[in-house]
């Protein structure tokens, strides 16, 4: 009886360890809805760089959820998680993901940062997370679409591969913010330019519906840990999408 209890405790502790974001192990479950992660586009410049094994710089530009302060430390934000996951996929290639997240910026404000925060770093891939602030501020839809298009054009001109990341989903915020149209606009711009739009919104909606991460009625410290887990899943799924796109 005692031994069983002990085993149980050890098992729980082990599980706990595996779940903590500081561990290198992949999180237990980042389930996605079947068919929701079809990657049909290619990232030719990144693929070429990985083939030759030269150092790879990736810039993640976006808002507060890119910066990832919610998880408590920069290492717990999704860009760093993406770097770790990619390092595991391509052990022979030095890969750096630079985090250029600045909270509460519109797509246009991010494009204005491109010369200093993106192009100056000579990345081979840019992961661009956009749309939340535009939806919150109710920026004109076509201004938003035009800004994203301008950003894509700028990067393409520099021969930089692009991957867009759409909004975060939260059950409650979506009742007071009209995300749908901005979401559709972002996906349409991506589609038009043959740029993959990472379906973060749908993915997080799925997690919310499946109760993968339960943010309700938990203490603040626990919330930061959960945020770190979400970011870890986002980083991992992004890495998996990139792996498909460079094949």
């Amino acid at each position, binding site marked *: 009886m005692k031994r069983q209890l002990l085993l149980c405790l050890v098992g729980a502790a082990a599980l706990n360890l595996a779940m903590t974001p500081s561990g290198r192990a992949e999180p237990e479950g980042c389930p996605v809805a079947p068919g929701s992660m079809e990657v049909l586009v290619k990232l030719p410049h990144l693929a070429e760089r990985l083939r030759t094994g030269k150092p790879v710089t990736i810039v993640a530009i976006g808002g507060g959820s890119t910066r990832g302060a919610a998880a408590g430390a920069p290492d717990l934000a999704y860009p760093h998680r993406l770097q770790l996951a990619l390092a595991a996929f391509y052990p022979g290639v030095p890969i750096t993901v630079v985090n250029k997240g600045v909270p509460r910026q519109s797509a246009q404000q991010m494009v204005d940062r491109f010369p200093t925060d993106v192009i100056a770093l000579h990345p081979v891939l840019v992961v661009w997370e956009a749309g939340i602030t535009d939806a919150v501020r109710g920026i004109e839809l076509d201004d938003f679409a035009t800004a994203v298009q301008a950003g894509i054009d700028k990067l393409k001109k520099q021969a930089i591969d692009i991957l867009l990341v759409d909004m975060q989903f939260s059950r409650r915020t979506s*009742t007071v913010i009209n995300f749908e149209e901005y979401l559709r606009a972002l996906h349409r711009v991506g589609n*038009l330019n043959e740029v993959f739009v990472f379906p973060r919104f749908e993915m997080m909606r799925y997690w919310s519906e499946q109760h993968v991460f339960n943010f309700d009625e938990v203490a603040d410290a626990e*919330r930061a840990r959960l945020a770190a887990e979400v970011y870890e899943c986002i980083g991992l799924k992004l890495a998996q999408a990139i792996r498909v796109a460079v094949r």
Partner: protein
Amino acid sequence: MPEPSPSRDLRLDFFRGVSLIFIFIDHVPANILTYFTLQSIAFFDAAEVFIFISGVTASLVYGRRLVSKGALYATAQVLRRAWQLYVAHIFLFVLFVAEVSYTARAFKNPMYNEEMRVADFLDEPHIAVVKALLLEFQPAFLDILPLYIVMLLIFPVVLIGMQRNWVLVIVPSAILYLAVQIFDIPVSAYPAGHVWFFNPLAWQFLFVCGAVLGHCSAQGAIPPMLLKIAYPVAALIFAATLVVRLSWTLHSIWGACPALFVRELWPVDKNNLALLRLVSFFALALLVATHVPRTARFLGSAAARPLVLCGQSSLEIFCLGILLSALGHFVLAEYDSTVAMQLVVNVVGISVMFLTAKMIDWYRVVDRRPALDPAVVRGGGEGGA
């Protein structure tokens, strides 16, 4: 305002009723039925129908008042209507504040509080409330009533101008619209950086077009020849836009279908009422006006009745629709968002709108019925307008 008269054009009520149902459906997010509303087959949506028909009816109703009781009286009536809309807007705003205050719990979540601080205005309620009273604060889904209010505020000028000559009205309105298209002049709102979602400087043109059309048709001043000439053009425009827009919708469902001309045409600016929206709307309006005569039998049928009634109580049903879509949103977000649940939300919402319209109509009929019993007349003397 909706005082059914024998000469009332039921088409206006019917199609305004349809637009109100579509506005409700389109406002419930991730709603499967949005594939069956105007916006998935046309470049415009129910908002255009609603504003245009409101222009037509306003001109018919207040035009009659102007003739029978003078400009001052008609102006007072329009302003009273604007006041009703204003009160309705403030009512919806209070509901929104309640919803956000409840939702503010979610903003304690560190993942969202940095980006999605819609509840920011709760930090400065003294400013936010004043801005709402000034119509400058238009949170999600509370954007069409301010437009309608502004339209009514300018309407007395439109009405009196049309009495002299409708060209005097349409020309400045068109110039303003074109100026917005060319120079992209936004109307700023609160908080800083926001704009009026429905730019009144652009949308006024549609409302004025409706008003002028209502005025001219009441005067019998529309030459039938004009419609005959315009018909083939409208049919062509409608067919072309239908094919293109439908291809976009199908593309979003099955990626394999090509989205025609999407690179050339998209995005179609809704804020400023892009020319493409306007032209394709007029094309469809002309086709409908030609094919659905005023005397069309179905307008009087029992099946069309709920929609006609909704259109006749447009203010009440509009506000109710916004409220119901917010509730529907809440249910879908909080409990379950499966297709079955979406359908339940739609069916319940539309039924509530129909029943409310029916109830308002019943009340209106009873209210207008002369009381025969003298005792009732003596007893129930309060009433008033």
